[in-house]
């Protein structure tokens, strides 16, 4: 287990390093190069040289890379072109906001979808299963922004039950009581999206396991059906579900650009859309880099969870054992 953990950790670090190289290369291959982007148009050649020197852009590329990496590790993502605000100052609050929104939606969809999928797998095509199927179709087929607008129309404009958008009502204390009503609509939209996938995954994963020979062995031992499902089947069914969850982890931070835009949620997804419009490369790069880090982290976590759930995984790297 320890060996496996270390191996995966080293692999992740290597990938992180490669990601940083690629990101750095991307910045340098941006149209006109970093100097042009960074400098105000109409600046004289001399002034530009001075500026480039001040910014360290006249240094050899490897040195620039090391400095850039050093800054990154200290949480310095650079500055925006407009107003020269530190990127970190814009970025981190949006990460927190996105985490709140996505975390609630994700958690909610998980605690509904996994038990529901398990239940449906034991009673294929029952009413509950059919309902889940319909909800899945809706969740997959309906564009989230459209569903969001529908909810706003009904619950905010017509019924006036819930706030239309934003995270907090302006001019009021920013506490949980203020936050909760604002969460309801976007969380509903996002939960439906997650739920659509997870309820299907958990159902099909369980169904596959329930037809395995070892499930019949468990029943032949005289095991009550509940124990067969929750002890012998679930643990095996969780293995593919963990993969999906690990792959979905970046969404938690990356946010849902469309939903956040519709509900004017000050999260990272919306920030990305806004900054893309404003061509703020430094912010976009920071978001890209952060997302890449979370992708790697998600995969790493999924692999570690794998090894905990499935004893066969640890041997994979050693080529397995036959006897």
């Amino acid at each position, binding site marked *: 287990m320890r060996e496996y953990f270390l191996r995966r950790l080293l692999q992740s670090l290597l990938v992180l390093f490669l990601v940083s190289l690629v990101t750095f290369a991307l910045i340098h291959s941006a149209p006109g190069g970093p100097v042009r982007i960074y400098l105000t148009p109409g600046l004289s050649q001399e002034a530009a040289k001075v500026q480039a020197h001040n910014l360290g852009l006249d240094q050899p590329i490897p040195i620039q890379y090391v400095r850039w990496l050093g800054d990154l590790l200290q949480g310095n993502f650079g500055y925006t072109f407009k107003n020269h605000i530190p990127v970190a100052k814009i970025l981190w609050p949006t990460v927190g906001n996105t985490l709140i929104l996505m975390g609630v939606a994700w958690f909610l969809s998980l605690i509904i979808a996994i038990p529901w999928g398990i239940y449906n797998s034991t009673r294929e095509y029952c009413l509950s299963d059919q309902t889940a199927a319909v909800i899945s179709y809706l969740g997959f087929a309906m564009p989230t922004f459209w569903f969001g607008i529908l909810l706003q129309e009904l619950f905010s404009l017509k019924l006036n039950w819930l706030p239309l958008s934003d995270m907090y009502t302006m001019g009021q204390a920013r506490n949980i009581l203020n936050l909760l009503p604002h969460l309801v609509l976007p969380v509903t939209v996002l939960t439906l999206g997650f739920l659509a996938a997870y309820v299907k995954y958990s159902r099909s994963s369980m169904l596959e396991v329930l037809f395995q020979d*070892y499930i*019949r062995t468990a*029943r*032949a*031992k*005289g095991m009550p059906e509940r124990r067969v499902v929750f002890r012998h089947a679930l643990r095996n069914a969780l293995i593919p579900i963990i993969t999906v969850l690990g792959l979905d982890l970046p969404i938690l931070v990356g946010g849902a650009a469309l939903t956040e835009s519709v509900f004017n949620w000050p999260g990272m997804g919306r920030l990305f859309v806004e900054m893309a419009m404003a061509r703020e490369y430094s912010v976009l790069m920071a978001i890209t880099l952060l997302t890449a880090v979370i992708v790697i982290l998600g995969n790493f976590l999924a692999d570690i969870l794998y090894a905990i759930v*499935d*004893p066969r995984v640890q*041997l994979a790297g050693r080529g397995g054992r036959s*006897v």
Partner: protein
Amino acid sequence: MKVPLLEIRDLSVGFQAEQGILKAVDRVSLKMEEGKTFCLVGESGSGKSVTSLSVMRLIDYDGGDILSGEIFFHGEDLVRKSQEEMIKLRGYKLAMIFQEPMSALNPVFTVGDQIAEAVMLHQNKGKKEACQDAIEMLRLVGIPAPEVRARQYPHELSGGMCQRVVIAMALVCKPEVLIADEPTTALDVTVQAQILDLLRQLKAELNMAILLITHDMGVAAEVADQITVMYAGVMVEEGTVEQVFSHPYHPYTLGLLKSIPGYESKRGMDLYAIPGNIPSLAQLPQGCRFHPRCVLAQEKCRLEEPVPHDLGSGHMVKCWLSESAEMSESTAEKR
């Protein structure tokens, strides 16, 4: 007469399909006594496994329905029992082992845990005691260093080892009846012999009855006391191992015997195979189910289903040819 330990009477099992109910097992009867091995023999699709799963009432989970008949165990009809009642019997008084030892074990639990679990389900024992029982059982089925093996996962064991583990799991509560569904089919020939020996030895030690399902007449000859030959869901011949092997009557039994390599065949000769395939349950032939593949089939065989015929001392055959003495002699000649 003594009450048999397990008695199946006119058991019919069906599966719901588009065409209606398909009968996978049609009026099968058999009696098992303690300390004896009973073999169900037939090709794939002849209904052997369905019969055995019905005894365990595991067929319910595979979408099968017991349509009629009774299964008496200690005089109690298992068909009428609820799954809750069956849970108390399964793995305790009635145990079963399966064809594919590798996939019959749960990959995410250690083999020791899986055996101990069977103990804890049926006997009022703590985890520690159950684990001790599991290790003892692993030793009994001939696994070296059982303390070490108990902590290993199925993928760390070979196929033969896994089958020993499966046997240990089935026998840890000392069942009265063990159902073994093709226990050696997935194993190497040398391992096959070891497992059969093991079953024979454990049967004597625990004085249990074994219902062995196999398609291999060689295996049946090796371990059986009683043999029932099944074809397309019906019994075609039954008798003691001597009766069936020394005086096989049904053309299908003969075909199975001839298919054993080395039995009446010489090196270089083609192995004998019964022509044709077992019919699908949706398109069972009229009359005798075996007639399309039977070299001796006559007009009557095509029209009417044969009735069981007693050849004396429990040797039953379901074949029209056995009805009249001349015919049986003529079949004997043709053999």
